[in-house]
């Protein structure tokens, strides 16, 4: 075991209850523990280990940081509440924020004191950011914003949102006229309405209506009309988190089956197929990490979302179907099953992923 992992192990020993491993299913959803653990990780430099001290890190190499992340996922450390805050917003602030923005906002988002929502999708635009229609009109020191956002998770519980708006309706290419504003969700004219989910135990989506909302011009994040870059570079930081989580999720979903001695040959074959998916996600993820370290931009990165999400869905199906009618008596199985249907939709549907692979990786002609 490397020194870094040994140190992380010691940290976990202190930050988590002694019986954490044994009662992980209980503790992982303990809100108080989740809050405390995030703060402790931030203070001790394990939250974003490759960042600098004071920002939740300790300046580890990206390889070591990944090892910590994988180990944390494997040991199922308490979930970060406002995961998009740490995973997407913080990197965006760190990369594009002004000193004043960073001073005010970075610590609270990393500690979990202030939550953030992502204001990207709009009704009718799906995941096609370039087609967004929410308008921001400059009036002196403020942007006046009108429009609406949808699928905005945790907008009710959040203090802030990164709001992508059209600031130049006449830009030559549609994605060139987009900017990112920091929206205080308490501003007048903001109306947040929840959209309950099919899986009832999961956080609601929200719709966010914006009616003449005035946002100080100082709250522009990144360059004017540079929102496309802000979005893509912010999201990039999450890329390893996604496959690491997929790997763990798939393994967790089939874990009960590994405890059953009565599984038939059929089910064992399907279980093996899912194990192959999980391990393929892990090793393909690692290939992309080592590939980037050696200066390549690895094509195989583009399979991770498609393979990982389809496998996650397959795993929840297996978990439910391999238990027969008894599977109907366990509410969590069905919640996981329903929620997993979204895996192949959120963040780019499987159809979009296949287009991306076909066009960007294989070089096949576009057809739109």
């Amino acid at each position, binding site marked *: 075991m490397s020194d870094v992992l040994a140190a992380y192990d010691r940290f976990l020993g202190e930050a988590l209850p002694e019986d954490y491993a044994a009662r992980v299913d209980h503790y992982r959803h303990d809100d108080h523990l989740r809050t405390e653990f995030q703060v402790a990780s931030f203070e001790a430099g394990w939250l974003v280990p490759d960042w600098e001290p004071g920002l939740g890190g300790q300046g580890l190499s990206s390889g070591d940081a990944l090892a910590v992340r994988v180990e944390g996922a494997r040991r199922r450390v308490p979930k970060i509440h406002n995961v998009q805050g740490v995973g997407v917003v913080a990197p965006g602030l760190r990369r594009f924020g002004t000193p004043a923005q960073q001073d005010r906002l970075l610590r609270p988002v990393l500690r979990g004191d202030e939550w953030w929502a992502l204001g990207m999708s709009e009704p009718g635009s799906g995941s096609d950011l370039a087609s967004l229609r929410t308008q921001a009109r400059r009036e002196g020191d403020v942007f006046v914003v009108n429009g609406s956002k949808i699928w905005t998770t945790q907008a009710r519980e959040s203090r802030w949102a990164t709001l992508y708006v059209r600031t130049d309706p006449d830009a030559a290419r549609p994605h060139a006229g987009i900017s990112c504003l920091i929206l205080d969700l308490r501003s007048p004219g903001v109306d947040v309405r929840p*959209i*309950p989910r*099919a899986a*009832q135990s999961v956080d609601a989506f929200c719709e966010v209506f914006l009616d003449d909302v005035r946002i100080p011009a100082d709250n522009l994040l990144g360059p004017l009309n540079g929102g496309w870059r802000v979005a893509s570079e912010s999201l990039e930081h999450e890329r390893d988190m996604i496959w690491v989580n997929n790997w763990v999720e798939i393994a967790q979903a089939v874990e009960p089956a590994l405890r059953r001695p009565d599984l038939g040959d059929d089910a064992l074959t399907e279980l093996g197929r899912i194990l192959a998916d999980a391990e393929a996600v892990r090793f393909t993820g690692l290939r992309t990490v080592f590939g980037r370290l050696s200066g390549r931009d690895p094509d195989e990165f583009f399979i991770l979302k498609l393979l990982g999400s389809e496998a996650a869905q397959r795993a929840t199906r297996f978990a439910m179907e391999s238990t*027969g*009618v008894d599977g109907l*008596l366990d509410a969590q199985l069905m919640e996981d099953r*329903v929620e997993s249907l979204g895996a192949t939709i959120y963040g780019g549907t499987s159809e979009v992923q296949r287009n991306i692979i076909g066009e960007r990786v294989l070089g096949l002609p576009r057809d*739109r």
Partner: protein
Amino acid sequence: MSAVSTTTASRVHTDPSRWRDLVDSDERAEFAASVRAHLGARFGPDAARACFDAAQPAEAWREIAAADYPVIGLPEAMGGAGSIVDAVAMVEAAGPALVPLPLVSTVTAWQTVAHAGRPSEGRAYEVSSERRAALAVVDGTDELVVLDGALADEVVLVDVRGAAVRVSVADVSDAVTAVHRHVDPGRPTAVLDRTRLSETVLADGRTDVDAVLAPARTVLAADLTGVGATALDRAVRHALEREQFGKRIGAFQGIKHRLADVYVAVERARSLTRAAAVALASDGTSDLSAAELALLAKAAATDAAVDSTRAYVQVLGAMGMTFEADAHLYFRRAQQTAPFLGSAADCYRAAALVRREDHR
């Protein structure tokens, strides 16, 4: 022996005229349309959604009883009329309505009784549309997991005792120990304590459990086919309306081909389900080949319903993941029904074993 043996026993299957009932007569088609209209207007997705916050609308059973749906396809001796082909047409037509009452479970129970013995043995068991029933397969424990058992007045038990299969009936009264509503609250799963049941034996001594379960499997297959067909319909409608990247999404082969595959799955299920029903109807009792067809039908319909409802969610995109969208209601119904009387894999496998036996 060749797969295509020349014995008279198997030749009867290849005479196409035996299968004329695969296609609805005008009369049956009209009947199915009336069921679809009636139940669709009376129930439907909103009624199903309401069951998340309130109990099943038990009082509405009156209307179902008044239409005599529960006894359609039962022999006259049991108070019915028509054949199981009519019952199957009715159940399939009920699919879009997501009926939040134990209609399908009642039909599975009474059809099992109707086919459980040879006619000559007499089944002086009369049923009435007022009574709601469910079916339980006993697998060695006293805890019976029963589809849609929460509102059942009676339960029909199929008990595999070594080489013999016994069919009995009992009042449910206070035998329900738990009701699980989380998968599909319009069709919950009940757990019954068998020790609290007082059973009357209706048939005993048949040896092939797949033959005994053939009518019930066929009815569940019709239900799943109806759910799958409805989800496909609605997915197609959405694909015709929704635009992305400047086109109606149904124009993209990614969507079009997936929905085409779902159509194949639904028609595959429908053909096998109808064939199983016709085989049951023309034999009076279920013979081995009806058992095989019922297994294939249940398997195919499970595949079709799960795949079609999943595709419905996928075609809707994020909207499909919301509580207000109907997609999850159909998906839930498919998931709730799927595991009973054998998963798709179980049924395919059992059918292969029946065929192999037959082949010897």
